[in-house]
Structure formats: C-alpha cells, structure tokens
C-alpha cells in the first residue's frame, strides 16, 4: 500500500500539470476567432455629466465600449463624441464615482448623472486567494490605491507605502538611489527578519518589491491581523502586502504616457574645520597628543582648504518615463507597459537605472474557462561608490567630515585634482595623515557594476464547474540574477603602493510556485457562504559564485584569470521548499453577522523532519451594526461595523536553511582567512569542525495576534473612520542567543522569548466638494508599544547582535551600544550617562581618592589619566549601603558592568501620515506629510565630529566647527564639549547620552501641483487628457535632530557584508543623506 502511494503521488502531480497546460492550448485556439472589427465613425452624441447633487463634472471619461473611441468632459461637464453608426454602449467613468454604462442607438443627447461616491463601500479588497467586498471584510486590512502611489514620485515601490496606511512603518535605510527600506507592520516581532510577505498578482515573492514599477500598481492591500494573513501560514507573522498590478479592462482602451524629471539639491552638510583652523588645532595639540604635525602646517593661513563634502556631494537628477497601453474586449483584456527610471544620486559615483516591462493578459475562452497571464521583467544597474558608513577607517559618507581639510603630499598639486588630472594626496609618511586618501580619486578611479535581472511570470487557468464553484491552477516562476564586479586600480597615493584589486560575483535565484485552489460561493436565502481552499508548493534554489584577487598587469582588465594573486573564491547553492494546504470559509448571516475562519498547514524544509509542519488557524467576526433596524434611520451614519479577530501565524523568514543540523565544514581553502586547517612541517592540511551547535528542535516563530476594530462612515461616506486596537505577541522567535563561550560556541540558534507589540491605528478620511472645489483630507496614525516580555531562561537582556565596525579608541568601547532587555524595547540604545565636564583637578582627585580607599591604590573613579576637560560620567546607583535591599549609592567608580544604562530607543511612540488633496477647476494640489514622534537617534556622527584621533588609532582627523569653538579649554570651561585629545584615554567619546538625540520629525514628503489642460485645447489631437505638474519632495523637515537627516533605518555591518537587524536601528553612522527634489512632469492619456 505504501509503495502504491509513493508511485501514484508524483504521477498524479504530473497529470495535473499536463491538464492545466492542455487548457492553455485550447484557449489559444479560441483567441483567433474573437478579433472584433470596428466600423468607421459617423454619428455625434453630446451630453453633460453631473454629480448626484447636480454639479458639472469635468474630466470624466466617456468611452464607446469595446473601442478606443472616447473623450473627456470639459470644465462645464459637457462632452461631444462621434460614435459608430451601429448601436453600442457608452462607458462613463471617473475616479471616485461608480462607473456607468449607457446604451445608445444613434446620434443624440445623453446626459448622465454619476452616482455619488459610494465607492468606499463598493470597493473590493484583495485578500489571499481571492477578493472580498470592503464592507464584508472581517480582518484588519488597509489599502493603498494607484492614485496615492502615483502622486508621490518614488524610486522603489516600497517607499510608496510610507505614511499611507496605519500600522505600516516604512523607513529608508538611507537615501542612496535604490537603497533598501525597512517595512514593518505592527512593530518588531523578533530580532530576525521583520519584513512582510509580498504577494504580487497572487505570487508570494521571496525578495522584496524594489524591482517593480510603481506606475504598474493598481492597488496594494495590506493585511495586518491574523484573520487576514493566516492563509499565508508560516510567512504571515509580519503581515502581508498584496500587490495587484493594473490589468486591461473590457471596453476601455487607454494609452498613457507619464514623464517626470526631478532635480535633487545638494544635502545639508556638517560644518567642519577649514585648513587654517585644522592646522592651528594640530599644532596646538602637537606636544600634548604626541602628533608630529607636517612642516607645511606651521603656516596655517597659507594652506589650501579642501571642502570634502563640497567635492563629493553634487546635485542629483531623477528621470522617470512610463508608457502603458491597457484595454480589451469582452473576452480578451491586456495591459502592457514599459518604464525607465534613471537616478543620479547626490553623492558622486552613485547611480541607479531600472528598466521595467510588464504584460498582463486575461482571456475568457468560454463562459466557464478563463486564463490569465502576468509577466513582469526588470533590469537594474546600480552603483554606489561611497555610501552610508565610513565610521571605521573605511571609506563612506562619514569620511567626508573626518578627512583632513588640506592635502600636501603630492609635490605637483595641493588640489583634489588639478587641471592636468593629477590627484592630490596626503603626506605618505607622516602618521598624522597617512591613513587618509583622496576620496575623489578613490571614487573616480574605481569601477563597479551591479546588474540585476528580475522575472516574475505566472499563468493561471480558472474553470467554473458549476454555479459558484471554481477551480484554479496557478503556475509561476520567479527568477532573479545578480552579476557584478568591483575594481580598484593600483594606488600610489600611499607610501606603499596598493596593488590593483578585482572581484567578480554572480548569484541567481530560481523559484517556482504551483498552486491549485477550489472556490465555492453560494447564497441560500439569508446565508451567504464563501469558501476557498487549496494547496501550494514553492521551491527556491539560490546559487552564487564569487572570486577576487590582487595585482593586474593592466588597469583595463576585468578578468579574474589575469589576477596575479587570488585571495578568495566562493561558490555554493542552497535550496528550500514549502508545501502547504489552506482553506478559508466566510459565512454571512442576514448581511449583519459575518464570520471568517482560516487555516493553513505549512511545511517547510528549513526544519527537521518532525518539525516541518505547522498549523496556523485564525477566526474573526464582524457585526454590521448599521444594518440593524435600530440604526436604519440614522441618516448621518452611513455605515458602522465592528470587527474582532484572533489567530496564530508563523514566521520562517530569516531562519537560515539547515540551521537545525549539526554540520561539519572545512571552512575556506588554504588561502582564506577562515579556514580550519593547520600546517605541519610547513605543509597545509585540512581541518574539520562542527560549524554550529545542532538544534533539532528548531521551529518557526509564532505570532499570536488579536485585533478589535471599527469601521464607520458618516455624511453619505464623506467622512470615513477606521480604528483598530491590535495586540501582537511574537513567541519562540528565532534568536542566535549568546551562549556561554565555554560551550565552544558563542551563539546558538534557538526559539526563545516573546515580544509584544500593541497599539492603536486610526484612519480618518474626509471628502467634500463645493461646486468646482473638491478636497480631501486623510490622516492615519499608529501608536506603537514594543515590549520584550521574555528572552530566555536566565537571560534578561541581549546586546546588539553584531557590531557596526565602530573603532574603540582609547577608553572608548563601542563594541556594545545596544541592549534589549526584558521589560524594555527591542533594539534600545545602551551606554553611560554623562555628567558634564570635569573642571578642576581637585574634583577628579576627590573622586579618585574615594575609589582608591575602596578598591586600593591606583584605582581611579574613571581612569588614572583623567584630567580637567574630560567628560564625567554618572556613577549609577547600584549599591545597597543601608541593608534595606534597595540600592541607594553608587559604587564609587565608573565600570562597564555597573554604570551603563538604557539611553533611548529607535522605536517611535507614534507615526502618522497626512494627505491633503484638492482640485479646483483644472488645478489640483496634493500635499503629503509624514511624521515620526518619540524615537531617539544614536548620533554616532556627532561622536566623530568631536573625535580628534583617527578611527584607526594612529593620526588625527577633522572635527566640527561647533566642537572646535566650544570645546573645553582652560579659558573656556565648557560643560558640554570635552577637551580636544587624540588618544582620549578617559573615554570622553564612549557610548553615552551625549550622543542620544530626539529623532522626531515632521516632513513634507510631497507637494504636487497639477494643471489639466482644457479639453478644447487638446481634443483635435485626439488626446484624452494632458496634465502637467510640478512637484517637490522633502521640501521641509521639522526636527530637533542635529545631524543631517532624522530618517535612519537599520544600519549595515561593514564587517559582514552589510547585514542588518533591529538591534542596529536608528544609529547615524554617516547616513547617505536625504535632500530636496524639485521636479516637473506630464501625464498624457490618449
């Protein structure tokens, strides 16, 4: 019996695939017969379109169904149109109004009254494996429309989510073109991956959505609670964003052309010392700090100042062009689009270009059979020669304010680059400057290429077997590949010439999805039942290969074969798969009481055999109170619904494949830094080690979510309110917990702890029109309470997971800067509290004496080297001197173990988006504000502006003007800024509250003013609509933050390829800054 099942099972899989495709072949045969022919136009039809209350509606589309013939109404709402001499149907559509169809059978006048905006109720929401009417939704779902996405120009689609929906927090990691973005729905559920699952036209994509063209998007529906997301099982815990792309509609044919060009202004810059100030400071500190200043610095006023920020920042340019053709007949609808986006970033050497192409085809072959195809392709090229970072000795944005503002090493020129193309450089020998390089030369001489191809294609076949009973099979692939190289030529600007360096890498991900669903929908009197269920397989393989080396005989070569010394070669592949069954049933009683139950059983190859499968159920109810008789006559209230949901969903993102196994590895090869072998008699031999502590009990993270919500509409839907209270408890989240290193390992992957996120989400929308003046205000607001409930038995806190490459100079220990403790917030900042500046030696001596009496001679309060002008830190109350069990005193000295405290958190108290829309006659205006309130920023850049010693430990660097002017000196007894010192033995610049700042801000994200040309001007050119507009982004930002920009996401770790996590959020390491865009654009529809 067992054997039979085993044989039958793969065969049956193949059978179904075959059947699915045989349907497609038949569909194609039918296609040939359905081409319609259109006769020449002859008769005129005129009329006027008004709203329910009689206002003329300008800009309404009037189209002959099944043709491309159409027009738009003028300012007075009137239209005139030539129609074919046969009878037909007019389609009258306008955004915000219900589309109408009116038959005609000859010339004449057809006046139309468009129904008042009932759209909010009619609106359809896309949910997992189906759609629902907004009014029947029982879960927490919010939607972002194409109109909203189109108003704010963005580079990548995920940016378009910012501020658009309650509960969705979007933070740019930095502002470099095409850079990554953090999208978090309802807070941080764990220390690993907190990104939502994106489902694009029914395909759950593994990567993000940055490859999609924002102008292709019809809607984004954000599923927030378990009731809505549970159908995506073990990928649902962070929420699900369902993206629907624009499809052709029958009867409409539209060609649209959009163009936008934006100029990006140079960003705000740090005010740093010029050459004269710097040389003066260096000379002053020479003896005390043991610097040997350059002889040239002895005459500071003669030095040429190099303003590094000015050299490297430039004004940027973003251009975006899209063309789309969408339309169709009754049987066949298609949508085709092409787009190009080109962005030149504001930092020299940063560029991004993306090409998008998309085809969607829907074909209703017969009454019962429908085939749909969606294909999206994109190719992007990106380059960032100098990005976020540089906080260590590496190059990055932070280097711009660190660089010494004068270069005297090259006898040919003291300029950054002279007219003959000679690059200036620093003195090659003197340690004071030797670690610095000419950043312009670094950027201009390097060469890199990063190319991505992305293909998402799926085809589905849906058959209606009986009334209300449909089956569907959906087959899709998602293929993406990256290839690139990085080259730096030999560099003689240093004492030792650095050889040329070349590395090349490629990776590709190939994935397929196969899903079969059965849906049933029937009404039996007052009972409406809707069911969908099915199963799904998804299989993903990622392969990567890379190599690099040093020394090339020519700087023109980009060939690994020509590299003189190979320093590393890597190549591997990894596969993972999911197999799932799912079902959802909704029951509607009397159109008053709604019930939804959902379950998914998910199996994942990431877990050991016994732990592969998990079941994720949810249930929700809703009561349409408005439909009760007692509210029927309350006219002010258009709609009222109360919702509640509860469910359990999982998260398997961020759990590495095979981490449940104890596997052995040999590490890298003989040439690598991470091999496990050893030489005997000078001959290398391989070594074999257990790579991680095995954890066969590894399982998905579980998120238990509940939600209570209310949807209400007033004043005939002009005022709409949505409110939700959410409670989300993430349990068993995967954490590479630090284990005692006496185990032989420093970390182990375990399912531990729980984190609770709770808060209130509010959405408020108001629309009004007064004659030709229409306006709308929409506001959404989310409060966020994040609390770590537990971590692990015996573990009350964990520090930042991984570092940020912070140099620890002198007494400054920057290895730990974060602490997530039970009862606190995930990713909180950690360090010392400062207590001003020591003004006198007597003050220091007194404290040292107390410490010495307690701990023995030579034990100081802070450090034996502390002198006046050094920063004083607070001795935290940790000792119980009166024996009552409550600490009442400090321990008399500053130690890492007892005097560090939580200093702040990058999680805001609330964030909010405010959108204002208005149109008057042919003019329209859109303003979009975003605010984040109550979050703190760990301003590491400020530390750098106050640090005179260079990050590598030798030499010196530039500092800020504010610090220079106001630093402590015997004659300027500052209580804020410590003295200038290269070595900083006292640790003035250790992690402390001196660098914690309020990161709240309010930003005008977008302002757009448009003008639609009057019909009279364009009708002759058979153009439907021309709208021109000007727009500005980030026009102003209100914030108390002293750094360049308060929007700071998760920071990449320079030591491990830029990995990010929540314990490294909100830290300004020298972030690629945001700046203003000013643009003008054009929308044309034919």
């Amino acid at each position: 019996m067992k054997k039979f099942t085993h044989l039958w099972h793969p065969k049956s899989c193949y059978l179904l695939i075959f059947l699915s495709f045989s349907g497609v072949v038949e569909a194609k045969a039918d296609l040939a017969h359905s081409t319609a022919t259109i006769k020449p136009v002859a008769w005129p039809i005129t009329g006027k379109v008004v709203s329910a209350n009689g206002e003329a509606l300008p800009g309404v589309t009037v189209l002959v169904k099944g043709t491309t013939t159409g027009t738009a109404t003028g300012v007075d709402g009137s239209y005139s149109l030539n129609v074919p001499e046969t009878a037909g149907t007019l389609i009258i559509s306008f955004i915000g109004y219900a589309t109408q169809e009116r038959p005609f059978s000859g010339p004449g006048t057809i006046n139309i009254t468009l129904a008042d905006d009932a759209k909010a109720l009619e609106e359809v929401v896309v949910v997992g494996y189906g759609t629902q009417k907004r009014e029947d939704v029982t879960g927490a779902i919010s939607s972002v429309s194409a109109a909203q996405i189109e108003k704010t120009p963005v580079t990548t689609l995920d940016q378009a989510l910012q501020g658009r929906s309650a509960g969705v927090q979007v933070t740019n990691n930095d502002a470099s073109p095409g850079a990554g973005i953090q999208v978090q729905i309802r807070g941080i559920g764990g220390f690993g991956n907190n990104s939502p699952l994106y489902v694009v036209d029914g395909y759950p994509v593994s990567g993000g959505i940055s490859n999609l063209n924002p102008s292709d998007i019809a809607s984004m529906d954000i599923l927030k609670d378990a009731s809505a997301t549970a159908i995506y099982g073990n990928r649902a815990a962070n929420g699900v964003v369902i993206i629907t792309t624009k499809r052709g509609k029958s009867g409409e044919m539209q060609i649209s052309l959009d163009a936008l060009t934006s100029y990006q202004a140079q960003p705000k810059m740090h005010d740093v010392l010029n050459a004269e100030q710097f040389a003066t400071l260096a000379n002053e500190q020479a003896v005390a700090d043991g610097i040997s200043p350059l002889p040239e610095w002895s005459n500071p006023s003669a030095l040429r100042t190099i303003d590094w920020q000015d050299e490297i920042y430039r004004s940027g340019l973003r251009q975006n062009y899209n063309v789309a053709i969408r339309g169709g007949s009754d049987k066949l609808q298609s949508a085709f689009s092409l787009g190009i986006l080109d962005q030149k970033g504001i930092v020299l050497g940063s560029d991004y270009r993306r090409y998008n192409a998309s085809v969607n085809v829907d074909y209703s072959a017969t009454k019962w059979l429908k085939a749909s195809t969606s294909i999206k392709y994109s190719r992007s090229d990106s380059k960032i020669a100098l990005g976020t970072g540089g906080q260590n000795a590496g190059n990055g944005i932070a280097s711009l304010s660190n660089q010494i503002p004068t270069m005297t090493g090259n006898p040919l020129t003291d300029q950054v680059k002279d007219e003959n193309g000679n690059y200036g450089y620093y003195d090659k020998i003197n340690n004071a400057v030797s670690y610095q390089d000419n950043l312009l030369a670094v950027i201009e001489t390097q060469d890199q290429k990063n190319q991505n191809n992305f293909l998402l294609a799926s085809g589905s076949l849906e058959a209606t077997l009986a009334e209300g009973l449909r089956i569907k099979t959906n087959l899709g692939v998602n293929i993406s590949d990256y290839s690139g190289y990085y080259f730096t030529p030999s560099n003689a600007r240093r004492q030792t010439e650095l050889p040329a360096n070349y590395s090349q890498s490629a990776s590709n991900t190939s994935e397929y999805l196969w899903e079969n669903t059965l849906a049933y929908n029937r009404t039996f009197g007052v009972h409406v039942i809707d069911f969908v269920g099915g199963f799904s397989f998804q299989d993903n393989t990622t392969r990567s290969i890379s190599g690099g080396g040093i020394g090339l005989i020519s700087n023109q070569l980009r060939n690994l074969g020509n590299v003189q010394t190979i320093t590393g070669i890597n190549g591997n592949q990894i596969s993972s798969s999911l197999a799932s069954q799912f079902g959802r049933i909704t029951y509607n009683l009397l159109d008053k009481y709604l019930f939804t139950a959902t379950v998914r059983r998910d199996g994942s190859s990431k877990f050991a055999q016994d732990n592969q499968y998990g079941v994720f159920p949810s249930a929700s109810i809703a009561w349409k109170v408005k439909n009760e008789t007692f509210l029927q006559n309350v006219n002010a209230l258009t709609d009222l619904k109360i919702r509640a949901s509860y469910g359990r969903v999982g998260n398997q993102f961020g759990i590495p494949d095979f981490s449940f196994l104890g596997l052995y590895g040999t590490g890298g090869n003989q040439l690598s830094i991470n091999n496990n072998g050893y030489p005997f008699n000078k001959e290398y031999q391989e070594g074999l080690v257990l790579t991680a502590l095995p954890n066969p009990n590894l399982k998905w993270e579980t998120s238990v979510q509940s939600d209570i919500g209310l949807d209400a509409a007033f004043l005939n839907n002009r005022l709409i309110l949505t409110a939700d209270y959410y409670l989300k408890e993430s349990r068993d989240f995967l954490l590479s917990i630090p284990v005692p290193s006496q185990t032989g390992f420093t970390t182990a992957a375990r399912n531990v702890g729980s984190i609770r996120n709770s808060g209130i989400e509010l959405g408020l929308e108001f629309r009004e029109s007064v004659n030709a003046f229409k306006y709308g205000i929409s506001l959404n607001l989310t409060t966020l309470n994040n609390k770590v409930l537990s971590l692990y038995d015996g573990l009350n806190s964990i520090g930042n997971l991984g570092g940020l490459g912070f140099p620890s100079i002198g007494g400054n220990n920057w290895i730990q800067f974060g602490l997530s403790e039970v009862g606190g917030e995930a990713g909180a900042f950690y360090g010392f509290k400062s207590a001003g500046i020591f003004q006198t030696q007597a003050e220091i001596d007194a404290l040292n004496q107390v410490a010495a009496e307690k701990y023995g001679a030579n034990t100081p309060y802070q450090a034996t080297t502390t002198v006046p002008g050094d920063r004083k830190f607070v001795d935290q109350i940790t000792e119980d001197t009166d024996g009552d069990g409550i600490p009442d005193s400090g321990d008399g000295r500053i130690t890492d173990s007892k005097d560090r405290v939580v200093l702040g958190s990058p999680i805001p108290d609330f964030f909010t988006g405010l959108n204002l829309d208005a149109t008057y006659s042919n003019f329209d205006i859109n303003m979009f504000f975003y605010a984040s309130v109550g979050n703190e920023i760990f301003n590491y850049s400020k530390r750098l502006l106050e640090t005179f010693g260079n990050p590598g430990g030798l030499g010196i660097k530039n500092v800020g003007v504010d610090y220079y002017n106001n630093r402590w000196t015997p004659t300027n007894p500052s209580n804020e800024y410590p003295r200038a010192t290269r070595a900083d033995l006292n640790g003035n610049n250790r992690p402390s509250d001196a660098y914690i700042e309020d990161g709240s801000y309010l930003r005008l994200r977008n302002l757009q003013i448009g003008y639609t040309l009057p019909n009279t001007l364009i009708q002759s050119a058979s153009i439907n609509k021309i709208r021109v507009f000007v727009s500005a982004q980030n026009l102003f930002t209100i914030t108390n933050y002293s750094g360049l920009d308060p929007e700071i996401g998760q920071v990449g770790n320079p030591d491990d390829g830029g990995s990010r996590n929540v314990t490294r959020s909100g830290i300004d390491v020298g972030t690629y800054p945001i700046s203003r865009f000013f643009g003008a654009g054009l929308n044309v529809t034919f």
Partner: protein
Amino acid sequence: MKFNKSIYLLTFGFVTLMPLSCKDYLNETDSTRISEESLFKNAADGINLVNAIYDTFHDGDFINKSLWYGANFLSQDFHNYGADSFFETYEIPTTFNPLNVAWTRSYQGIARANSAIPIIAKMKAEGVLDAALADRLTGEAYFLRGVFYYYLASNFGGVPLELQTVTDEGRHPRNTQDDVFASVVADMQMAANLLPWKEDLGTANLGRATKGAAIAYMGSAQMWLKKYTEAISSFNQLEGKYQLMENFIDIHEYNKQNNQESIFEVQFLEGADQSWGHANETIWFSSFHMPEEVSNFGYSYADPKLYASFEAGDKRKAATVIGPGDEHASPAIEIKNYPKVKVQFGGINTLGTLAKPWKGSDNLRSGYYSVKTWRDPNVTGSTSAPGGKEYIFNGQNVIMMRLGEVLLSKAEALVKTGNEAAAREIIDNVIRKRAGLGPVAASTPINDVLINEYRHELTGEMSLWFLLRRNGEHINYVKKEFGITIPTGKDILPIPQEVILNNSTITQNPGY
C-alpha cells in the same frame, strides 16, 4: 461533451491531490557542509578533526594580544604603543576584546578536542582508524585541551572545566585555579601515555604534539599546584630528549624553526599574500612589534630598564632587546635593507642612533624593541620596495615551550624542594653558561636568581609573567624593578565582561 470530460478529469485530479502533502517536496540537502552520517568513514576525517584543534591558535589576536601581551606587558618589560597602554597601570578593562578572544578561542579549541575524542574512539572501534593512529590523535586532543586550560588558568585563574561536549546550556561556574591545573596534569598524563616522542613522530608531522611536550606542560602545571617533587620527576623524563641550542640567538632564528630546543611550537605558513588579504596560516606578529621606522607599525616597544638590566656579557641581551645605535643580532636581519630605512634613514644598519633614537614619528616610543619577535627576514610591514608587495603577516612559527624554560622551572622546583645546590648547578652550568656568563654570586638569594634568569632567558616570549606569578614573588618584583604597585587582585586578568554577561554563574576576579 469533450469539455465536460475535461472538467471531470480536472475535478478528479484536484480531489485526489488535495489530501496529499507531497512530502518529498521538503526533502532538501545542504551541499555546502557535511553531515555527521556521511563523515568519519575514512581515516582522513579523523586526522582533519584533530588538525582543526590546532587551528584554534590561528586567530588574529590569540597568540599576540591574548597571550604575548599577557606574558610581557604585565611584566612591564614591554609596553603598548597607542591605545592599550592600560597594562602599565594594570587597569585592563573587562571589555578589552583580546580577553574575550583568549577565552572564546580557548574554549573553541577545548570543544573541538572534546568532540574529537569520542568520534576517534568510535572510528577506532569501527576499524576506520588503526590503533596507533587513533591513539596518537587522541593524545593530541588531550594535549591540546590541556594546553588551552593551561593558558586560561595562567591568565584568568580558575575557569569552568568542560571536559566533554556541552549538551546543556553551558552555564557552569568557575572551578578553582588548582582544579584547572590538576585537570591539565591529568590531560597531559593521558597525552604522554598516547603520544610518540618527537624523534618518532616523522618529519611530515613536525609541529604535532609529542610525548615530550605533554610532559613539559605537565611538569609546569604540577608546579602551579606546588607539587614540586612530581614536577621534578616529570622534567627528568625529558632528559636527553631535547638539547639547548648552542647559541642563544639561534633559538628564534628563522631558518632554525622546530629546532632541537623547541618543545611545543605553534606552526605558521607563508602564503600567497602576506598583506591584509592574508590567509589564516599567517600571523600579524613580527611587523606588529617591529619599529615604525621599519614596518610602519611598532605597536610595542621595550622598556629601557630591560635593556639596562642585563649583566655585562650576557649574550641573551642582543637576542632579546635592541636599542638605539645597535645592529640587529640576527645574521638574517640587516636593518639597512628595509625599504623604509633606505628611503628615509639613508640606509643605516643600526636601530637609529644614540643621538636620534627610533621612537616613531610621534616620538612616543622608547627607542628599544623586541628582538625575539623580529626574526622573519621577509617581513617588511606595510612598506615595500618600489613595485614590491607588502609583507605584514609572517609565517614564522611561535615557540610556546622550550627546554630553556623547562630547565629553569626544574631549578625552581629543586629550590622549592630544598635542593638549592642542584638548582644553582642548572642555572650556573647550563643556563648562564650558554648566555656567556659566569656563576651567580652565592650570596644572591636564590629566588632573586631564579626570577632574574626567568626574565633574561624568557622575556619577549610566551611565558614570563605566568612564570613570575607561579613563583609568587611577581608583585614584589614589579615594585622593585619598575616602582609600580599592582592594585590588589590585578595581577591576573579580569574575566571578560561578555563571559559574565552570558553566564551569570561566573564570578569576576575580586580585583575588578
């Protein structure tokens, strides 16, 4: 009708498939690493498992900052240039990263040894490994585990003893320093029983643990336990197995690695790239300590008091510390040949001059440098001849234990057991004789003699501070020689902060 048929087929297909889970879809295998089932089927796997225990020494900071610093900065003969100067005041922060490297890396090696021992036993039982090879490999594992515990206890005092693979959460408290050294003795005894003598090891395996090495560490650990009689009998077993190098300078000579005096030596290997892209087999050691005027680094320098402390005629002086105006004592090293010296110092062949000592461009060093670490003639630091390559990392081995140390330890053990005459015999007729010195005055207190010889024989190597602390007179010694009062309890290193953070049962050393 044709369509209806299709419908029925489709429906049938669905209904049949719905309840199936297609379980084999989840059957994925890892192709980047190897599972235990497929391993250990041939002898090479067992050898590789043990090789990886040695690999523990190959860590950027382990030999240098975790061991060399501890052996030489705490004894004040050498000082750190730049940031880590807290050794001079013994205010080592608990967060000083090399402490954690010492701890983490040692336990990594211990865990590798703990996991290897039962696997090798299984391979032996299954006949995959022949008995002789299995015994040798097991002996190596015990030896290396003992070595890691030896240095852990020397640095930190008592540490938790993990003698088998940790299967619980590993939150075990510290054992006492004596427990740890007792465990070292046991491991070394086990290893000594299983391992071959160096002469029986075979050239291809040069660098592996030997019976002699196990006995040497066993004796040293017995001395920590004050079991001096046992220590003497341990050391006596080494009689005739190792010989002193005739010339002291040759002990660390580049072309005399793994020599007759060397008992345990960590092996390194030159690779294709000796610059920042170097392989794990090289170490940033030589150029790290060489003068800035030569290597661009010079992160340590010698105390002039060390230079002055040698008796006239002590041949060990020039082989230990070089001062202004001195030529390098090794025949392999010509200062004038270094690229930076050629360009910036007119190709002089001395370490600067008395008038212009090499104190670094910022004048912050003493002008005196370690010679024992400056022996690989290939190393040039981050300098190079025009068009040449940087040679920052070196491939020269590091001697951890040699006969000179064993003889002095034995002398101390003899003193402690009341046989001062035999001790003086070793010191005068073996150690000092090779150094070119006459007998020490009988009036000098014997422990002062011992400490003096430990210092001049072994400073700049991997053991001095540990031997001084073992002797017990280390605090007085530092006060006497350098005028520094060691704060109470700070003669041993603090337990790294991260260790306590992750295991609250570990208590900090009382001085911190």
